[in-house]
Every structure is written in C-alpha cells, then in structure tokens.
C-alpha cells in the first residue's frame, strides 16, 4: 500500500515558520493548556511592563541630585495590605482555574471507546502494544514488566492473544480518544510530544493509565524521551503519526499478533555500559 510506505518513511515535520514560538497544537487538551498559557502570559506580561515602567520612572525621577534629600519613610501599611491582597486573589484564581483544567485532563475517566495503547520505555527506545480486532489490551501488571515481558502481561490473557507490538513506532487514529498505559522496564523515561502539549513520566514498577488524548489533525511527529535516562537519552525518540481512521485500520491489518512480545529492535542505540 502506498499509504503504508508513506508512513514507514514519514519524517516528523521540520518547522519552517514561527521557530520562536509554540508548535501547532493537535491534541484536544492542548486548547485549554494554550489558553491558560496565554492567560498567564498576558497577566505576567502586563504586570511586568507595569513594574518595569514604575521602576524606570523611579530611577529617573529619584536619581541623586545635589540638594534634594531622600524622603524619610519606613513604609505604608495600607499599601502593604493592598499589594498583599490583590496577588492573593489573582494567584488563588489562577490555582483554582488551573486545577479545574487539571481535573479535566487527568482525573476524568477516559471515554469507554478510547483506544488503549501501551507504551513501555527502555534504555533507549519505546515498546508499543496495540489491541487487535477485539479492541482490548492484555492486562498489564507493573511488577511483571521486565526484560522478557516488556508489557508485564499474562500470555494466556484472552484479551492479549490478538495484541500486536511495534518498536519506536506509534500511530494514532484521527479524532478518536486514545488512552495510554505507560510504564518502564528500567529507569524513568518520559512521554513527550510538544504538539500534543503532553509530558508524562513513565516510572518503572508502575503503570500509569490516566493519560488520554484525542488527536485533532493528521501529521507526523516525534515522540521524545524527556527524562534523562542514560547516555543514549538524546537519541531516544520514536515516530508518532496521526492518520485517518481508515489508514489506521489498514495499518492494524498489516500487523501480526504477538501475545507476549519480546520485541525485535529496529534501531537499538549502541550502549557500552561499564562497571557491570
């Protein structure tokens, strides 16, 4: 399929415009994050301009001049009350509004039809597991995640018989909620895609199931590890594509099930760790 060959050679976008600013956002939750970002930017920007203007005005107006003594003042309690109270309200409002969004993003149960995708980090790559036609992933047990069993699944788990796996290669269907199951085989890694406005640590010994997202535009992106994980850290990236539902289904069909899946590494980073 031409589409598949396109996928396999696809590269993430090299941005040509607005390199000084945020990349485009393709995740449903990114809108709230961007809104809050711009809100804080305006708030702090206006305040900064005000503070610096006052400062510069004072520096010019009250520069030392012969015969002009400084005012002797130890302060003003009314002012202290004012400039304590106003920030309290602004910061509390920001915290409350931010928490509301945080709750939406992190504490709300993902929709039942969300596509479950397991991503398990290792030095220095990404093990990815997709559900087969049954739409169900095998149950992951954090304590079982290890070398031979990267996803910590029971091989006899009926939900996992048709699961398939990839390495450093993630495809999300457009406009469909995706629920991530994140863990790690060795050290802490982090799932980071700036276009998704998404960062989440992946901690060994734990499976995080609270991250979900919905891609709103197709494209090719780069999944980067953003938690220092050793000498190959800088090269721990994977391919992340968002495609139309039909292309996604075609991609799924092209995969063969792998119930436990020790994964063949496509591009392992050479590691020469000493001392052990």
């Amino acid at each position, binding site marked *: 399929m031409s589409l598949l060959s396109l996928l396999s050679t696809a590269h993430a*976008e090299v*941005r040509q415009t607005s*390199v*000084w600013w945020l990349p485009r956002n393709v995740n449903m939750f990114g809108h*709230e994050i961007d809104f*809050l970002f711009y809100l*804080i930017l305006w708030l*702090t920007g206006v305040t900064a301009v005000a*503070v610096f203007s*006052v*400062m510069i005005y*004072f*520096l010019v107006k*009250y*520069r*030392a*001049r012969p015969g002009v003594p*400084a005012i*002797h*003042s*130890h*302060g*003003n309690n009314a*002012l*202290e009350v004012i*400039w*304590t109270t106003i*920030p*309290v309200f602004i*910061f*509390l409002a*920001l*915290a409350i509004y*931010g*928490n509301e969004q*945080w709750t939406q*993003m992190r*504490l709300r149960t993902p929709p039942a039809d969300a596509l479950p995708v397991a991503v398990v980090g290792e030095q220095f790559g990404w093990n990815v597991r997709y559900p087969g036609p049954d739409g169900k992933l095998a149950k992951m047990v954090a304590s079982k995640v290890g070398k031979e069993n990267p996803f910590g699944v029971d091989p006899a788990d009926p939900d996992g018989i048709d699961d398939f796996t990839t390495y450093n290669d993630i495809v999300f269907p457009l406009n469909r909620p995706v629920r991530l199951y994140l863990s790690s085989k060795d*050290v*802490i890694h982090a799932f980071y895609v700036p*276009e998704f*406005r*998404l*960062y989440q*640590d992946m*901690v*060994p010994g734990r499976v*995080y199931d609270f991250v979900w997202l919905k891609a709103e535009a197709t494209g090719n*992106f*780069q999944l*980067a590890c953003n938690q*220092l994980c*050793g*000498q*190959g*850290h*800088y090269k721990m*990236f994977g391919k992340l594509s968002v495609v139309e539902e039909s292309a996604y289904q075609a991609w799924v069909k092209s995969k063969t099930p792998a119930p436990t899946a020790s994964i063949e590494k496509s591009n392992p980073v050479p590691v020469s*760790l*000493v001392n052990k």
Partner: protein
Amino acid sequence: MSTIAATHVGESLGHGHEEATGWKKYLWSLDHKIIGLQYLFTSLVFLLLGGALALLLRWQLAFPSTQVMANGDVGNPISLPFINPQFYNALFTMHATVMVFLVVMPLLIGAFGNYLIPLKIGAGDMAFPLINELSYWFFVASGFVMLAGFFVAGGAAAGGWTSYAPLSSVAAYNGTKMGQTLWAAGIFVNGLASIMGAFNYITTIVNMRAPGLGFFRLPLTVWALFITAFLLLLAVPVLSAAGAMLILDLNFGTSFFNPAQGGQPLLWQHLFWFFGHPEVYIMILPAMGMASDVLSIFSRKPVFGYKAMVFAMIAIGFLGFIVWGHHMFVSGMNLVLSAAFGVSTMVIAVPSAIKTFNWLGTLWGGSIHFTTAMLNALAFVAMFVIGGFSGIFMASTPVNIFVHHTYFIVAHFHYVLFGGSIFAIFASIYTWYPKMFGRMLDETLGKIHFALTFVFFNLCFFPMHNVGLGGMMRRIADPTAYEHLRSLQPINQFITFAAIGLGFSQLLFFWNFFRSLKHGKPAGKNPWHATTLEWTVASPPGHGNFASTPKVYRGAYDYSVPGYPRDYIMQNEPDAPDAPAAKSSVAKVPVG
C-alpha cells in the same frame, strides 16, 4: 557550651582564641572574617570551574560532536570530539552541582553569612568558631570528592544534579557507579558543612546580638540568613540521608529506589525535592536580604515596609516546605496531591510579590546613587521579577504538562539563580569588598562588567524561554538529532555565543577583584555612609571586631532623617537631644 554567649563577648572580644598569623591564617583560622574570605575565594574558583563546564556544554549544544551532517559525516567540523553523550551528561550534572553546592550556597551563606553576621550584630565572632572552620574544610572536601568523579572509571556522575533513581541508583543503568557514588558522598559531606554552619548562625544570632539590638532592629541581611539557617537545618539532613541511601543502593545491595527489588523511584524524588525546594529559597533568601540592604544604602532611604519584608521571608520559609511536589506534577504521583501542591505553589508567589513591591517602595522618593553595587542590586530585582513570572507558568499544573523539562524551565531557574542570586552576590561584593579588604573596587571597570554581564545574561537566557516553548527538551546531548528541533538550531548557536560573551565578561570582574586588593582606593571605615554596625569599625576590622561591645539605639535604616545634619545615623549613635526627629524610625510617614 554555656560559655559561648554574651559573657564571653563582654570579657574578650577575641572570642577566646588568638589571632592566627602569616599564611597559616588563611588555612586554619577561627576568625569568622577569615573563614568568610576562605569561603569567598574558594567559591570564586569554583565559579570559574562551573562556568567553564557551562561553556563546554553550550558548545556541544551549538555544534554537537554527534551531529550527522548533510554529507553523512558525524560531528560538526568545529565540534569538540571529546564531548561524547555520556560526558555531556556529566557536564551538565556537574555544572549544576558545582553551581548550587560549591558556588551559590557557599558564596551567599558561607562567605557573606560568616563575614557579616557577627559584624552586623555587634559580636566578636561566631558562637562556635572551631565548628565554623571545620564547616569550611568539610565544604572544601565535598568539592574535591564531587570533582574527583571526573578522574575515575566511568567518569563523573551523569544523572543530572537531581540524580533521579533508579538511573542514579543502579550501576547497570548509569555506567558511572564510582562517579555517582562520589557525587552522593560529596553531597553528604557538603550537607554536614551546611548543617554545621546553620546551627552556628542560629545560635550566634539568637544569643550574641549587641545590647539594644532587638530582632526588629536587625538588618534584613541578618534576618534573611537567620531564616535561611533554619531552612538548611531542616532540609539539608533529608538530602544527606537520601545521599547515604543512594550510596547504599549503588554499592551495598540495598534497594531503596529500585522497583525491580521492591524499591520506590518516587521516594528519591520526594526526598530530593523535600530538600530541593527549600534549597531554592536557601539560594534566594540571603540574596533578597542583602539586595534589600544595598537598595536602601544607595537610595539613602529606609527599607520600605521593613516588617512586611521580614514576615514575607518568614512566610517563604514556611511555605517553602510544602511546595516540593510542584517538581513532581508529571511524575505520576497522586493526582489530587498535585492539585494541592499547585495551590501552595501559587500562594508562595505572594510573599515574593510583596518583596518586589517593597523594593520599588524603597526606590520611591529616594536619592538614588547608581554605583556598581546599586546597578547589580537593581538588576537583581528586575531579573527576579522575570524569573518569578516564568515560575507562574510552571506552577499552573496544566501548563506544566507542556513546559515541564523543556528549556523554558532552564530559562526560569537561571533567571532566578543567575539573574537573582548572582547579581545580588555581585552587588554584595561591591558593597562589602571595601569592608573586607580596606580598598574600593574600581567603579569604571565595575560598571563595564555590569553592563556586559546584564546584556549577555539576557541574550543568553531569554531565548531559552523560546526554544523551550518550541519543544526543546533539557539534558539532550544533541538537539539536531530531532527533526522538530533542527530549525531551532540557529537560536541554540546564538545562545552559545551569548554564553561565551557572558563567561568572558566575568574575567573583568576577576581582574578588578584581584587588582583592587593592592591598587584600590583606600576605603576608610564607612565609604557608603551606611548605618549598620560593621561600618563603625576599621576596614578590614581587627581580630575581635569591636574594641568594646557596641550598644545599639535604633533600627538598621535611619537614612535621610529630617532635621539631622547628615543623611544617615549609625545604629550605635544615641539620640542626640537636639535631634528629636531621629526617633522617627518608628513613625510611619504617609505616602504621597
């Protein structure tokens, strides 16, 4: 122990020990001033080293030795081939470790804390002079232990200054078993030095203030160091314990942090940040205190809202212990707990805002003298404002999901640590150098140094906000490995050139510093016409500081008192019967 306090001060201002002489004085002295200078010189050497590490890592980011060029060659033609990815990781790990533990903390607390506290409270020395000198040598030892990592098999620690487990705690994962162990041992020994200093400062300030010097007459520098000492005493032991656990995990088969054997990676993060966030305030509170004093001296005005400043610092001290979780919003710890830490983090911004407004208030109506010290103090305020504002983005839990661990945070903490603490340190050096060495620093050189530092600092660190928002991760050895970062590479190169400019500008400072030791203008007792007790004695003060215990009659900020013949009244000057206005240090003058 009971002999330490005021009784001794009254009897012998040499504080029970003789003055050391000759070169020995600079190796082993019990005099707080010499110990302060030992800290100062040693930390300045470490500053050069930490800066050199920074320039090396910046060079790698601009011209990566791992970069695959268009013609297929690996390595940019002007890259440094010895910077491989592991060494790069060691560079930023040790840069941060050196700057935090061997530069900023010892400069603020070791150098200025030791030098200024007894002088400013009218004491002959610290409460525990021997422990004071031991603290210095523990600090030196910790530096050598940490840096020894560069010379052992596997190289220096390369897990970041935060040393997250299990990367740090399992040798097979980090490949730097020895270097990481030395790092943890260095942290442990450094912690002992801090703890020794902390209880010494607290004891000294509580017990040895001159008669009449109530707590609310203390200069803000002393208040800041007093509060900082409590933070050190409560936070540093936690880091030392974590360091010990890390050594055990690495070498003796325990498993505190390795989940493969039942440990908890997040335990390390909680321990580290329980120390690490108070640590942030440990590195800014003394800077705030000293900058407040510098602003007051050169505005010829009392600090605006003195008590508000004190209470704001106390509030920061308390709140500083309940915000550590904001470093862990995306670690996967309990999500409701994250929300709670988000609120406490927003709240801690309030006392910082109060301090900023009061600094502006101090400038208001002043008679501002733009000395080098003042320029650096003003830069401290301005850069701290920017650093504080960028912190609000990270404090907001949803925005943190996006900007966490990007160059945005690198920009943020350099605005606070360099823009804040280092500018305040420069301000303090320019202010108290005349007291320390009896000579003035050169003002022209000083202003050139300031201007270059200020410009290059902003050129270097401001664009980091942008590359961070553009999606550049911190701690990656080669940004060009990422397609989404390749177009940002010119900005990275720009930052590197600015960093080089910033680094080399500091040579002016060092030239000024060492040249002025011999050639500076003689300073006299009180070159700045300041009010506090250290300015009542010779520069440098003799052994024992004060010929007799001073008696304090007023607060630390009686500048420009109306009706008084000069624009400052020393703290030890009694009220003159013909100058009733001098009592106004307690009166409130309405604004406007």
